């Protein structure tokens, strides 16, 4: 392997891991909601879009850095999630319907409404938050002069990656070490038993939906410095989150991280060695392969299908 080939491979892996970290944070909110409530939230990407618009408004009107706006956007999304769950999804869950998955259809509707509201308020133009550090990067040759290969590590991508890891780690800590987290896991594992043990299942569900929304909200804030924003952006990220959830195993946080990283690296490798037009194809190959060969997700391979572990 020549040094050029090595450089391409290493750079591809770096991009793949950084992308995977972000994918993981997008996927983790969905996997949490799916694990606890057994519903597929197809408005997931749209919730991310809402958070991105919050970050955009904060940036353009108050010059608040998108990373700092996590502190505002995440609680806001938590509130939005709670409201959606309490007043829209819960009532539908209680109704006996001909189609058992009517909440899924409801979430699709919520997504459409959110996207259309965004179009009305912000128009369908592309928006960006042009931050100073958008194209800043660290280069291997700056630190090691004789380096035969040149690798670069983008600053905003790395920051997003690290923040995503911190958020995921604190979520893991929350789910395994706190009372509330344990109650959520109990609800996920066995709703009726949890109810008998005195867990307020209804409240846990509302809380979980809020938490899942807050997570994808922070993913949105981490995403906006490196990407851009338009009202219909949600769909593609809902799909990514869905693939990660299936890949990682429903309801598994660690599974979501592993799934996200695998997807990111796989996409980057396909882009480099098969052509970038093939990247979406690669994504769905993984999806189908996961459904066929590891139907319980990667975490089922370790025989520990418990939320948070």
């Amino acid at each position: 392997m020549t040094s050029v080939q090595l450089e391409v491979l290493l750079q591809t892996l770096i991009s793949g891991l950084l992308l995977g970290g972000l994918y993981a944070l997008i996927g983790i909110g969905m996997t949490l909601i799916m694990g606890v409530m057994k519903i597929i939230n197809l408005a997931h990407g749209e919730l991310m879009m809402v958070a991105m618009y919050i970050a955009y408004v904060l940036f353009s009107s108050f010059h608040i850095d998108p990373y700092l706006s996590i502190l505002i956007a995440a609680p806001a999304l938590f509130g939005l999630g709670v409201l959606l769950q309490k007043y829209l999804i819960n009532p539908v869950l209680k109704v006996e319907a001909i189609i058992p998955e009517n909440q899924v259809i409801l979430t699709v509707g919520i997504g459409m409404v959110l996207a259309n509201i965004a179009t009305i308020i912000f128009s369908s133009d592309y928006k960006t938050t042009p931050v100073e550090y958008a194209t800043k990067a660290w280069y291997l040759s700056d630190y090691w002069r004789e380096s035969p290969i040149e690798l670069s590590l983008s600053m905003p991508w790395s920051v997003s990656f690290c923040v995503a890891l911190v958020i995921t780690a604190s979520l893991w800590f929350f789910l395994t070490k706190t009372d509330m987290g344990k109650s959520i896991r109990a609800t996920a594992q066995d709703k009726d038993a949890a109810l008998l043990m005195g867990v307020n299942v209804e409240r846990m569900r509302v809380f979980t939906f809020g938490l899942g929304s807050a997570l994808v909200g922070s993913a949105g804030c981490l995403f906006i410095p490196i990407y851009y924003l338009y009202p219909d952006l949600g769909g593609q990220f809902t799909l990514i989150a869905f693939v990660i959830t299936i890949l990682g195993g429903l309801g598994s946080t660690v599974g979501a991280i592993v799934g996200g990283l695998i997807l990111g690296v796989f996409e980057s490798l396909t882009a480099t060695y098969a052509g970038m037009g093939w990247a979406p194809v690669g994504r769905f190959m993984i999806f189908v392969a996961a459904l066929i060969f590891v139907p319980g997700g990667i975490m089922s391979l370790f025989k520990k299908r418990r939320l948070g572990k």
Partner: protein
Amino acid sequence: MKRLTLIILIAFALSLSASTLFAAETFDLVIPLPLTGKQAKFGEMMKRSYEIAAEEINAKGGIKKKKLNLSFEDSGAKPETARAIVEKLIDTKKQPLIVGEYTSSCAKAVAAVAEERKTPYLVVASADDDITRQDYKYVFRQNAVNAHYADGLVSFIKNVAKPKTMAILYESSAFGNSGADAMEKDAQKIGVKVVLKEKYEAGSVDFKPLLSKVKAARPDVIYMVSYVMDASLLMKQIKELRVDAKLFAGGAAGFAIPEFIDNAKDAAEYVVTASLWCFKMKLPGAKEYAEKYKKLYGDYPSYHGASAYSALYVVKDALERAKSWTPDGIRDALKATNISTAFAAIKFENKEGYQNQNFMDTIVMQVVNGEHECVYPDNVANQKYVFPIPTWRERR
């Protein structure tokens, strides 16, 4: 008493002449345009430009002393609507010539109607090659066709950059494919080897794997066919990876509009792009028109506006030369057009399988100090191009 009668008589005569002035001394022109829908932004720009031109023409005495009276009909960029509007204009209003429309699909529909009813149609800003390749006798086009859009850029690459190799990146769509194929052919013609031709999905997040591959191939020129957001992301990530090339070139679309610079910031510096027109170019009238537009509406127009503005001057010129203001009279006059406008020199020719097509010089713009400057060809450039460009490491 006598005096009073005289005054009344004079007043009567005046009012009579005034009313005839309004009744017969105007030339009504209804222009179909997209004023709603996705293309409304361009339709609006063209409408304003037509109005500026009409005002100027009327201030200088109109066309053969007739006032040019403009009005607009919204087609919403829908071919059926455009078709219906034009049928009405020709059949009931007996308008002897049609000007306008924007999207190629609408222009195609209008061209078919105009040809069928033997009424001349001047295409202003629709670029699809087919419109003037159908042996139509009544359809004229003043803007360059897609196939010749990058002529200026290709000549710049050949004469200034003199590269040996090229990489082509394009979005996987009809627009991306045709742009990439055209450039590949042009590259072969000027003896440049295409070492990499790769497509990507529009809206992608991470181009870095693709760009690492480009970096490894070390092309002299990187040519990209993209819309604005992909264009900015591509340049940003090229900067991040320090992919160096002699020249970064864009195939218009996303690279030629100010939003590209707003989003890509310093990563956009020195990128060249093909374009039809730039308000900074040295062309008599271009600057005056652009400044007037900016004063009225706050920003500079793109080539769509310039072409619309100039179209009315082409119409004026043709009407002044026409033997009669009938469709055929105007058609013959249009055919003999040979004038220079604020948009380009305009002359309708039959060649390369096109009929009544204006073969204008297309230009090259380069981003210098955060602004698009017209740098090529030399006779219209407002500034010398920057070449060779510094490497990313040297830039800081």
